[in-house]
């Protein structure tokens, strides 16, 4: 059984300028222990997708459609208490900027302990012991000092380790990591990345790892999904995606990214701007920026074409460009994930 099953998820925010369609008909599955990289430019709906998994959206002016099944239970249909038990207990989140994601007026120790008190009902002494163990787990060099520190008193790397300790406090099965290294110094980025990969393997965690760094995705993930304009436009096992991208946007992302062993190659930015989520076009959202654009791209939404087993792409050109691929015979349409 899949740990997480997102089906036809849509999220819309009512704003002064109109309805912002941040996430549109997103579907995917995650097995226990699987690592999925969620790629895409900023504003493509990655963070909103993660928040949907936690059932955390502003209470007003937000419309959520579709299903988010966590261990078979729809997050959006649960009462608040059941959701609170899931959050931190079954699925937790690590944020991009640990400085702003930690409460500045509580010590690190208090912030780890309160999570344990909430979910495990531990007393203060037991919670403190466990908090110390957790800081050991995330390899904080002087745990006692870190426990007594306020967030502004420790380094960015330590803060992110503390954030990870909080996320792992109650042994969740799914970790949502929203660009957990983006805000850190380059040298620290690698350390945190290795720590997360190590923890994922040791604890058998399923992880959704949001990044716009394809290199990071290649290091850590089994599969990758590429988002554009609130949609998953391509999804495949990570190697497959790098070897044979089947969506012009994915190709563009690769050309725009530095990759190991490709030093000296010129970076080509994708021309144009991301789509306006208030007025998404009827066709493919990437069409206005696409070098291969054809008339149908502007008119109808591309269905999900299966390029290879486990590899799908929402591009009208897949049949023409990958005609040799035998898997195309069974091209799927409309909704539905690949797994």
């Amino acid at each position, binding site marked *: 059984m899949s740990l997480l099953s997102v089906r036809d998820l849509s999220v819309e925010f009512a704003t002064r300028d109109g309805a912002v369609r941040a996430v549109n008909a997103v579907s995917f599955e995650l097995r226990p222990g699987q690592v999925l990289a969620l790629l895409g430019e900023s504003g493509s709906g990655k963070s909103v997708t993660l928040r949907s998994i*936690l059932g955390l959206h502003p209470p007003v002016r937000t419309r959520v459609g579709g299903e988010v099944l966590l261990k078979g239970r729809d997050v959006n249909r649960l009462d608040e208490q059941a959701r*609170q*038990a899931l959050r*931190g207990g079954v699925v937790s989140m690590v944020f991009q900027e640990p400085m702003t994601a930690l*409460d*500045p007026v509580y010590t690190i120790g208090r912030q780890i302990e309160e*999570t344990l008190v909430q979910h495990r009902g531990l007393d203060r002494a037991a919670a403190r012991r466990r908090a110390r163990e957790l800081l050991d787990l995330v390899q904080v060099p002087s745990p006692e000092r870190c426990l007594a520190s306020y967030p502004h008193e420790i380094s960015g790397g330590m803060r992110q380790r503390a954030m990870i300790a909080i996320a792992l406090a109650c042994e969740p099965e799914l970790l949502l990591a929203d660009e957990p290294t983006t805000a850190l110094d380059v040298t620290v980025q690698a350390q945190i990345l290795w720590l997360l990969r190590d923890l994922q393997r040791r604890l058998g965690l399923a992880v959704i790892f949001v990044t716009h760094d394809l290199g990071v995705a290649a290091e850590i993930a089994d599969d990758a999904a590429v988002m554009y304009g609130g949609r998953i436009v391509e999804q495949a096992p990570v190697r497959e995606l790098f070897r044979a991208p089947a969506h012009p946007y994915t190709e563009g992302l690769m050309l725009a990214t530095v990759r190991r062993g490709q030093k000296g190659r010129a970076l080509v930015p994708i021309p144009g701007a991301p789509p306006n989520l208030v007025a998404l076009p009827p066709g493919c959202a990437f069409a206005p920026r696409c070098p291969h654009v054809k008339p149908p791209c502007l008119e109808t939404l591309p269905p999900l074409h299966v390029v290879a087993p486990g590899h799908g792409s929402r591009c009208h050109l897949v049949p023409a460009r990958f005609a040799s691929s035998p898997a195309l015979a069974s091209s799927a349409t409309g909704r539905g994930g690949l797994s």
Partner: protein
Amino acid sequence: MWRYVGRRLVLAIPTLLGASIIVFAMVHLAPGDPIAAVMPVDASKEQVEAVKKAYGFDQPLPVQYLKWLGRVVTGDLGKSIATRRAVILDVRDALANSLVLAASSSLMAFVAGIALGLLAAFRQGRALDKIASGIAVIGVSVPHYWAGIILIIIFSVQLNWLPAMGAASDGGVVDYARHMALPTIALALIPLGVIARVVRSAALDVLAQEFVLALRAKGLAHRRVFTHVVKNAAPQTITVLGLQFGFQLGGSVLVEAVFSWPGTGYLLNLAIFQRDIPVLQGVILVLATFFVLLNLLVDVLQTFIDPRIARH
């Protein structure tokens, strides 16, 4: 921490000295001659000189000031020109009455203002927010002496539930409290509105921060998240609470006049109309000292709550 408190206390001394100089200078800046006010019109020149000498008005100003300051720090604020009573006694009684009124109205304003502000913030954009914000706006925009008069008309004149005047010092606690009720409400209105608005905006600032989302993301119950928000909004709130309490002490002149409440404001009023300079000086000096100490207390409290404010 205690070194910080000590340093702040030392730093308060120049402020207090400045206040004392201004208060001392008042005697010489105030229009009219205080001596003339108490002397019979047909007093002889010798009599006037004798009185001047008795009050020390014949010496150079710096000497007068230092002598005066020396007396003030030992608690001798002189004698009232009008009543001949020691000023310190008048001021003490008035301060006690004002403190009681300031405390009761502040308590009312703090509790209602904080509750209203938090309610509005946690229900932002909804009906409750609009109602709470509306009450806050009315609170800050209605002049409190006018509100006092309206309260007297309704509760004393029309309904005859509560007394309108004085402090009933001879009666028991219940009588005192009954006399206090209306001025308390009148005085609470403005700080209630101010506090509600400050608390609302402080709480909204906190709620917009990412760590609130992070707290929810780790499954914290609402009441625990609420505690986090309150603690983060506290430093800003305490600042305004301290200031408002200070205003309650000094700013109640009109309300005390409306209700004839024998506090510092009432005494100040009386002293102004009677040209009773020693009383005026005493009241202002005591109030100024209170403000300085209150500010100090607020600053110290803030550093206790918010670890990011440096303590040096």
